[in-house]
């Protein structure tokens, strides 16, 4: 009996503690470092970016008190009125228009071909995944070599080689970047589509066949709707990649060239914010991009959940 008496008190205070912290408060300790990390690396910088974008912010020596007056929407007006910034946003749209359809079609075809028993699976997996695991900087080096003026691609094309050459041609520079990124990321999406294909019920194919649907019709009416969650993922991740684009225009087309034809918002942010010392307008670009990406992600999810 004494044992139960001893237990009731801590049990009661424990239940009060449980109401406040949850049944296993240790979880708070376990997730605290990650929560702090998210605050320091995401929440605070996001707030700082918004704050900077509404103020006249400039770099000053650490510890020096300087005035940074509120300027309202001035930075946003400056950014939206800047033809370089507008061009970089249009370039992302061009990037998405090429990258998304190409990725969806190629990844779905490859996943459908890989589905089921196949010889050389290990080799194929390594081949398609190699660009994904390799640094952009290293891959850009080979593409620079392949697509340079006297490079192998032009040698192979002979008289059909574009003039000016790929990476210095204002019409072709952005498409080359979009194809490069498609090639680099495709392996991941093949994997996503493979996982999605496992979730398409076999009975649907059987009933489609008994309804007299051919292979192509079954692919269109069963496979394509069945893998739609993976397609949403392609759209969202491609948008994020497009918004993040930096290394490729910086190195492959020598700083978004020719004449900004392949510049990206992050490249413009780097040039304006760090090279030219205007972190306030650069932050405004970042805030606009964050809003844009979140809107696209939201709309994509809505459209998919609708049916």
């Amino acid at each position: 009996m004494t044992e139960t008496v001893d237990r009731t008190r801590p049990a009661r205070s424990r239940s009060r503690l449980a109401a406040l912290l949850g049944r296993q408060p240790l979880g708070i300790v376990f997730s605290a470092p990650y929560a702090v990390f998210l605050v320091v690396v995401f929440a605070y910088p996001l707030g700082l970016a918004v704050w900077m974008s509404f103020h006249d912010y400039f770099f000053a020596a650490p510890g020096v008190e300087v005035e940074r007056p509120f300027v309202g929407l001035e930075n946003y007006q400056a950014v939206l009125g800047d033809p370089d910034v507008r061009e970089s946003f249009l370039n992302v749209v061009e990037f998405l228009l090429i990258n998304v359809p190409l990725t969806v079609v190629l990844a779905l075809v490859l996943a459908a071909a890989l589905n089921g028993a196949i010889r050389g699976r290990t080799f194929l997996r390594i081949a398609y995944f190699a660009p994904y695991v390799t640094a952009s900087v290293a891959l850009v080096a080979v593409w620079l070599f392949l697509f340079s003026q006297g490079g192998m691609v032009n040698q192979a094309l002979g008289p059909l080689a574009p003039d000016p050459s790929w990476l210095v041609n204002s019409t072709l520079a952005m498409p080359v970047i979009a194809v490069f990124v498609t090639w680099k990321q495709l392996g991941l999406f093949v994997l996503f589509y493979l996982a999605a294909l496992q979730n398409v019920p076999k009975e649907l194919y059987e009933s489609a066949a008994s309804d007299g649907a051919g292979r192509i019709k079954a692919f269109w009416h069963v496979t394509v709707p069945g893998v739609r969650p993976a397609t949403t993922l392609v759209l969202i991740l491609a948008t994020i990649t497009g918004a993040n684009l930096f290394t490729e225009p910086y190195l492959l087309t020598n700083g978004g060239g020719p004449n900004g034809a392949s510049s990206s918002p992050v490249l413009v942010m780097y040039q304006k914010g760090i090279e030219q010392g205007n972190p306030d307008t650069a932050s405004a670009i970042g805030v606009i991009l964050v809003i844009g990406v979140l809107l696209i992600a939201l709309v994509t999810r809505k459209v998919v959940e609708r049916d």
Partner: protein
Amino acid sequence: MNRFLRYLVLFGGALLFVFPFYYMLISSLQEEPDTTLKGAFPTGGFTLDNYTAIDERVDLLQSLVNSGIFTGGVLLGTVVFGVLAGYALARLHYRGRGTLFAVMLLVQTIPFQLLIIPIYVMIVRTYGLADSYLGMIVPFAINSTAVFLFRQFFLQLPEELFAAARLDGASELRILWSVALPLVRPAVLTAILLTFIGPWNEFLWPFLVTKDADMQPLAVSLANYISNVAGRAANPYGAILAGAVVLSVPAVALFVAFQKHFTDSDLGSGVKG
């Protein structure tokens, strides 16, 4: 799909994926760049001079050490704190769990690159962490995708397992270490590989943080070589490609070694949410 067509698509496509790697390696071993189609299949003129040339301009060993410390720091942070957070999110009931999970998902849709200006202001200007390993590591210290995968893996384990261990009086840390982790080991390798390629291949952030050549990871020093000095070298592409090979080998080798763990079912569990 027709059997022949299926193999043609798969292996034809694979050739397009492998060729640039082959071309990178073979051209890095050539004395003179030969961009003709025949030049892709050389029979002679092999040399290691390009590797010596890049090493003279970019201290390869120091750059590899820097890449290694940067990547190692991120791996350590992700494995220690990420596993703890993933376990808590999957298996423990506490106040704030729902919020943390929602924020974790939100973070995946906000591209890190877009916060580069305020993070640069914080780390380089306010805390003076330019040209330091800490400054490089902090923004990547815990990989959110890996935390999400850890959570999914722990979530798939049966609840009875945890109930039984708790009944035996095992602490949560002990359950995590001796019961849960061993069961999800192959999946954890997938998450580690995914985490590895982040910092090893990252360019923009270490490029902004390191101005001192002795602190630069290989991706940064090679990129600087490509954009600054390449035009003046005797065989610029040979040297660049030699550097590219050195940068690619660790990630590709690790992937080849672990690829059998890297299956669609592991990642699929993450996709299905």
